[in-house]
């Protein structure tokens, strides 16, 4: 399954709107200039991700995940290489980085950052779907993408929207990934809603 050019543009725009809100909230919190961008969006099946397409490595990552259930169901996650995660927290808090290990304080901070980013994203995406969505409390884990998919997608039929998330803080640029795992037929429901909106606007 591939996204059409219209769908790609629409999803990318929605993600940019969502993380734009998140960037504004983060900037307000840290009293500093911060920009967030989504330079690209791609769609994968769980099988493709598992096979390591597009350089999706199997290294342990720092992950903040948020489950959602309703008209569309799945898991939203913000993923960073662990060293980028600690650099991001150091940049946001202005504190010196002693090493790349993530302690409880850093994990809490990263969870809040992930929470803000994903709330922006989910807020933007859910505007297109009628009906109530139930969310889990965001959690932090360190694991591989393959393990996450195995845990969240036992049927192996999920579709995964993968978007690069670029954080620009002062003169630093850090990159992570936003991963949206849509269970079952959820992605089609979501894409149909977007198509309908684009058609109505056109």
């Amino acid at each position, binding site marked *: 399954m591939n996204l059409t050019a219209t769908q790609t543009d629409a999803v990318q725009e929605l993600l940019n709107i969502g993380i734009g809100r998140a960037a504004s909230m983060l900037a307000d919190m840290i009293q500093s200039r911060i920009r967030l961008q989504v330079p690209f969006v791609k769609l994968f099946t769980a099988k493709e991700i598992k096979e390591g397409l597009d350089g999706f490595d199997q290294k342990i990552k720092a992950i903040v995940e948020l489950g959602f259930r309703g008209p569309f169901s799945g898991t939203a996650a913000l993923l960073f290489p662990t060293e980028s995660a600690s650099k991001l927290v150091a940049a946001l808090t202005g504190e010196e980085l002693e090493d790349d290990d993530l302690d409880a304080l850093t994990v*809490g901070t990263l969870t809040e950052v992930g929470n803000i980013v994903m709330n922006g994203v989910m807020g933007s995406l859910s505007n297109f779907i009628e009906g109530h969505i139930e969310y889990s*409390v965001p959690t932090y884990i360190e694991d591989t993408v393959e393990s996450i998919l195995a845990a969240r997608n036992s049927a192996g039929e999920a579709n995964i929207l993968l978007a690069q998330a670029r954080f620009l803080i002062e003169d630093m640029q850090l990159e992570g990934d936003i991963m949206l795992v849509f269970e079952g037929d959820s992605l089609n429901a979501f894409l149909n809603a977007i198509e309908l909106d684009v058609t109505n606007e056109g």
Partner: protein
Amino acid sequence: MTVSEYKMLDHAPIGTCVINIHCEVVYWNKCLEDWSGILRSEIVGSELKTHFPHFNELKYSDRIEQVFKGGPPLVFSSQFHPHIIPAPLRNGKLRIQHTILSSTCPESSLYDTFNH
């Protein structure tokens, strides 16, 4: 959940309060009474921001509003919000808190915060 059902929160060793869509306190558990020194009878029915003016700031009001609109739960980390409900320890320092705000019942517009 009804107010009487929130009494079970008095048995949790976690500071917990329930607020409604107007950010008025609906329940204030015993742990928060101990931590903050504010009695339930003094705070229930009043707005959180009356007691804690920082809740007027956008970084709180904007995010809390999104939860009432059906958005995901919120995390307020101890690094950015160490004293969301100021709670003095015996040595005079303030207790460090990590706070979660989540919906207790989407239908009733009642929500709660958990501090620990």
